[in-house]
């Protein structure tokens, strides 16, 4: 279909919003970057600038929407709904300031006798340097940076408390929903039980409001492809997110729903009891996801995910601090941004979200594994052919808990390589007869060939894109000093004052045998627990039978990964 292939994104929970904020930033950076370096004097819109003369290969209309403010400014905002707890927004106003400017606190304006108006202010939240710069830039409406100069590098590691602290994208007023019943980081009334979330969904006020917002986005879409859903898998948001998914299944039954349950790389409270509660949430969530989603991909930067997040995944060229949500979520966002390029490109082999979810979820294998290679390590002047030939070790690192793609049996995979233009495919001087890969005429073809050679009987779908992953600030500076400005790897150190601005990346979604191990591990851990000991679950309405059924379903799902039925 020609027009519109819109996707609506839903984010439930704090960590998901951390990832989401990075993801939207990455996308905006790509749009920004092009006009900044190529055409500095173009028109600036209210949201941000974008450039019509140099159309990007990425179809931003898939995830973004165009709108008009009441004053007639054109805006371009994510087609996004997010839910978070009270107190998790920091300086960000719930409806943003794109459509409505913040109003002065003026008791005289209230329609009530002035002497009878009490003004109760909570202290204003301090904004960090990055946010201040962002705001002043927008107020002046002129780009202060000279054309061709490099964007400023910020160090936000210590000042980031909430995801709004590094959010560059501006959201539509409809985007943010706040749960007033529970407070962010609260000890007395935490939102950490699956059924609390499910019960919250059942309240008329929340459900009416939220479904209405979904409907508003859906109404605008000419030809919606489906939904991306990010949800925190280990707390109450698992229940809320899966309830919402159930609604989507009911109301938008023919649309694909790709779900990413996320697990933070570090938990703030780690008593045995809390670990068990998280485990139960995950099990209940996975059960519901397996039933209602088209495909779901668990994401965690730790290797084991539950009980303890485990050893952080190691990337050869990254130096990230896994205890910072700001860092770990950035890596996951890069993976999401890259892996979803398959159905977000304007050119080339366009496929749809449903095609991808259908092919990866064959035979009831609703769970897939995500992977990422960041950066896709090439030397500055190397060609893809040589790089692949000399490659040692795996191309990517696994991002799903309790799985390991290395030496795994992969049945079906969808791989995206970005940031390697056709110019860097192969050297012209090379001898033609030496290597069969020399006959390849595109990046896609060559990578397919490579993947066929290194794995046995794997059906791979390969997509390639020219534009790299744009990792300038507010993306954290987590690259090792041997990664250059443009993401190339060398033996020389990068000068200290310069950051990395863009990197090539490879990411994939894989349907493979080790998902079975993940599910088996989860099932085994949960079987050890006795539900009766967890009053918070029984109190919020979880029945013993229901729980038992959930465990049985998980075991069944695990069975799907046992036998080898090849396609």
């Amino acid at each position, binding site marked *: 279909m020609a027009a519109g292939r819109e996707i609506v994104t839903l984010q439930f929970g704090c960590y998901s919003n951390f990832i989401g904020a990075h993801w939207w930033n990455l996308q905006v950076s790509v749009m920004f970057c092009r006009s900044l370096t190529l055409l500095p004097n173009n028109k600036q819109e209210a949201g941000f600038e974008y450039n019509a003369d140099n159309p990007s290969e990425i179809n931003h209309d898939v995830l973004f929407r165009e709108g008009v403010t009441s004053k007639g400014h054109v805006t371009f905002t994510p087609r996004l709904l997010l839910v978070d707890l009270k107190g998790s927004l920091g300086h960000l*106003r719930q409806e943003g300031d794109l459509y409505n400017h913040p109003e002065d606190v003026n008791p005289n304006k*209230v329609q009530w006798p002035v002497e*009878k108006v009490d003004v*109760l202010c909570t202290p*204003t939240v301090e904004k960090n340097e990055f946010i201040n710069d962002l705001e002043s830039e927008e107020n002046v409406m002129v780009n202060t940076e000279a054309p061709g100069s490099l964007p400023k590098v910020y160090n936000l590691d210590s000042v980031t408390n909430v995801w709004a602290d590094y959010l560059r994208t501006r959201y539509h007023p409809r985007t943010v929903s706040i749960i007033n019943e529970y407070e962010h980081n609260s000890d007395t009334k935490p939102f950490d039980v699956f059924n609390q979330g499910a019960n919250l969904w059942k309240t008329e006020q929340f459900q009416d409001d939220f479904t209405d917002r979904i409907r508003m986005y*859906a109404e605008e879409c000419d030809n919606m492809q489906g939904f991306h859903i990010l949800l925190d898998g280990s707390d109450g948001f698992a229940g809320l997110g899966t309830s919402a998914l159930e609604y989507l299944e009911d109301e938008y039954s023919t649309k694909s729903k790709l779900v990413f349950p996320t697990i933070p790389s570090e938990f703030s409270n780690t008593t045995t009891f809390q670990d068990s509660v998280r485990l139960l949430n995950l099990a209940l969530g996975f059960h519901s996801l397996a039933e209602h989603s088209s495909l779901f991909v668990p994401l965690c930067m730790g290797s084991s995910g539950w009980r303890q997040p485990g050893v952080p995944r190691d990337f050869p060229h990254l130096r990230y601090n896994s205890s910072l949500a700001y860092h770990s979520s950035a890596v996951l966002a890069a993976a999401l941004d890259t892996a979803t390029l398959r159905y977000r490109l304007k050119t080339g082999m366009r496929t749809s979200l449903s095609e991808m979810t259908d092919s990866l979820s064959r035979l009831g294998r609703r769970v897939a594994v995500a992977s990422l290679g960041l950066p896709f390590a090439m030397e500055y002047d190397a060609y893809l052919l040589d790089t692949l030939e000399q490659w040692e070790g795996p191309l990517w690192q696994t991002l799903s808990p309790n799985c390991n793609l290395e030496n795994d049996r992969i049945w079906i995979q969808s791989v995206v390589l970005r940031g390697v233009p056709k110019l860097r495919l192969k050297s012209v001087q090379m001898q033609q007869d030496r290597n069969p890969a020399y006959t390849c005429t595109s990046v896609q073809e060559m990578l397919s060939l490579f993947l066929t050679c290194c794995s046995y009987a794997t059906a791979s779908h390969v997509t390639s894109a020219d534009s790299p992953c744009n990792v300038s600030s507010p993306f954290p500076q987590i690259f090792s000093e041997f990664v250059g400005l443009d993401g190339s790897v060398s033996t020389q150190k990068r000068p200290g004052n310069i950051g990395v601005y863009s990197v090539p990346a490879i990411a994939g979604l894989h349907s493979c045998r080790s998902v079975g191990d993940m599910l088996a591990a989860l099932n085994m851990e949960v079987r050890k627990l006795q539900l009766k000991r967890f009053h918070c679950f029984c109190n919020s309405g979880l029945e013993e039978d229901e729980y038992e059924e959930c465990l049985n379903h998980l075991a069944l799902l695990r069975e799907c990964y046992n036998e080898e039925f090849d396609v």
Partner: protein
Amino acid sequence: MNTYRCQSDQLCYDAEVICALYNQLRKSYPVALVCIVWYRSLRKEIRKMSAISLLNPKAEFARAAQALAINITAAKGIQDVMRTNLGPKGTMKMLVSGSGDIKITKDGNVLLHEMQIQHPTASLIARASTAQDDMTGDGTTSTVLVIGELLKQADLYISEGLHPRIITEGFDKARAKTLEVLEKLKIKIEPTRENLLDVARTSLRTKIHPQLADVLTDICVDAVLAVRQGDKQIDLHMVEIIEMQHKTSTETSLVRGLVLDHGSRHPDMPKRVENAYILTCNVSMEYEKSEVTAGFFYKSAEEREKLVSSERDFIEKRVQKVIDLKNKLCNNTDKRFVVINQKGIDPMSLDMLAKEGILAVRRAKRRNMERLALACGGTAMNCVDDLTEEHLGFAGLVYEHVLGESKYTFVEECKFPQSVTILIKGPNQHTLTQIKDAIRDGLRTVKNAIDDGCLVPGAGAFEVAVNQELLQYKNEVRGKARLGIQAYAEAFLVIPKTLAANSGFDAQDTIVKLQEEAQLLGEPVGLDVNSGEAIRPADVGIYDNYIVKKQIINSCSVIASNLLLVDEIMRAGMSSLKG
């Protein structure tokens, strides 16, 4: 031996610590028997400790009084926060968040939701108040005030040595009597517009500016009367509430029909049609992948094309059926055709419909299917086969209104609309929210009045009457329980007292004045918040809901009694470790 001593010195009696210790011992001394003996001796230690505290009655008593003190302080605290809100002269609260979000409210329920209540007792009271709102939609501030006052009055007697149990017995008797008084004072009404206006106005004037309250009063009453169908239970869902950030709040209006918050998505569709048949349906008119998600395998590109086009044909036939019906009914007449679909309509289908001059809107609210059927007639269709005229609704006027990026479709001039829309207007989001909260409560008030079939005199008149009756009743009761009744009688005066204080009058003066006047006239007398004089509520049309008062009497007595009987507050779980 060392390990054990070190642990017991710290006096850790948490089950988890004991388990950890047990495991630790087990690990270091694999001989199980020894470990178990140690474990037991540890438990003996604990038992000895609690025995000591049982032997000390002073400590125990202190704990009981302390528990009560904690509860009473909490109740007073939350009462102090809410006190200034009560009545039409209460203060408006403007809440500004750290990021600059503004909320303006006077509604107890909204305020309780916004506040961070950490104290367990306070949050119990707050929950009672929220329950009051869920049940009746009004009286949240009163609930908090009365619970607080009941505890305060009881405290006077308890500090003189009266046992809380006796007070609660008195409370129980007083509650029964108060309910009798309520039955006696209630005024039977017919659900006429005039009667309902009074009660709605009373409720709304305590929430928003009088000028706006008067506008909303008419709207709320008319809306409820419109959706009321004979003696059937009133379904307030059939009153749609739509917000429009535009103009001023007094332009809020009632639309006798339906307003949809979306419009047509095709440039050639008519923006305004008159005399329109309305087809409401839940039929997908967009091409999408087949409902069975099994993978397709195509032998060739042509085969794939063929499959796609046959899918397309299928949708086109659906749309054609609607067009056929339109041609049958509307050709050669001045009638027009409107399609309102709950599912999607894709650009190609929109195009087909637009060519025929049909106005089509997609993705309507699920609930609007029901509302449309009530507003315009007809039925919501789940398939477009065998459509006939009687399935269709009718509206005199359908038009579109565009505001920035939001579109609104008005379906008006319906014949017998049994579903209506309140269109809220306001210059900014917080005004809209404030009005919306007020309208919700206003609608509930009107519905309650119709359901009850009776009203209670307002302006504090009921509370003054209760006070008088209880003081008389007290003399009939023997024993110390009468002190409980006395406390209960005093506690209810908090409502007129606070009303007077909030209006700038002396509380004592006013109460005495009201009591004298009530004695003299022998009928309920309330407070005029403007002059500070006594008035007869019936004369000025100040009425409260019967159910609201009943709920307050019941819930406040129960909660206050429960809190009084608490003699030990224990904290368990995670938070106990953090103090």
